[in-house]
């Protein structure tokens, strides 16, 4: 029998971007735009990305990184306030193993001509397959990739 465990955690990551909240929101909500920065750096071309950006809509990002098994990011959009807030829950699966379930809140705050993004991620990490520290690091890399995308577009 697998030893069951759940570790709960919350982390907050902040970034400042030289783009308006409307532009940052577009990069988060438009599937074609999001595809350009929302990628695993170890597997930059996902085998499947589907995104239905509306409350109750789902997003799936599936890929096969270096460890050889399929990884699935399955999200449900829980709350959307255009240009201000996106809340979604997601599970992460490695193969058929559910690694974590998380609730992510992204808040966009106007800051001069730019935007301060505050991401709060509340997570439940299951059975020791992954850690909050690893997730926080990976999420920070994604938000840096979003920043690079926004600077390219500027």
């Amino acid at each position: 029998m697998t030893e069951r465990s759940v570790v709960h955690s919350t982390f907050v990551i902040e970034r400042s971007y030289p783009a308006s909240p409307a532009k940052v929101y577009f990069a988060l909500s438009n599937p074609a735009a999001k595809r350009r920065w929302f990628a695993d750096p170890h597997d930059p071309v996902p085998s499947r990305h589907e995104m239905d950006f509306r409350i109750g809509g789902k997003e799936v990002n599936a890929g096969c990184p270096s460890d050889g098994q399929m990884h699935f990011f399955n999200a449900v959009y829980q709350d959307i306030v255009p240009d201000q807030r996106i809340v979604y829950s997601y599970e992460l699966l490695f193969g058929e193993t559910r690694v974590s379930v998380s609730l992510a809140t992204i808040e966009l705050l106007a800051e001069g001509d730019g935007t301060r993004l505050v991401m709060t991620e509340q997570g439940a990490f299951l059975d020791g397959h992954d850690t909050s520290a690893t997730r926080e690091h990976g999420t920070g890399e994604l938000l840096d990739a979003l920043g690079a995308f926004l600077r390219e577009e500027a």
Partner: protein
Amino acid sequence: MTERSVIHSTIVLERTYDAVPARVFQAFADPEARMRWGAPSKTAELVYDKADFRVGGLDVSRCGPRGSLIYRVENRYVDIVPEQRIVSTELVCEGWDRLSVSLITIEFQPVGASTRLVLTDQIAAFGDKDMIAGSEAGFSAALDNLAAEFVPETAGA
């Protein structure tokens, strides 16, 4: 500069029940049982319009003061390990307003012939900090009520 509008909190509640994990787990799996113990008080009511206890399944319920069920709750099951764990997301609405979203983990651990239950509610409340206290009070009262499900029927007879 715009202001932040979401309040985050983590609520942890622990209880020990005089029943094995299989029975306590069943009290969560069965919507009929949940309607008995899930309302926080005698003056409140909880009604399930839809119940689908399986991974990916959705429960839809209404609750509030008896005769005025103003809150709509959508609970989506994300992870279920029979007799051990239930993880779900819970969205609470009043009319068209979304009040909060929670990630809820319920863990069941055997302690002798009893069960230690730990409920962790990781909540994001939209604008109203009273939702945090309200969520904690509601779950706390429901978990107290749940103990009555395991009182032997012959007790005191």
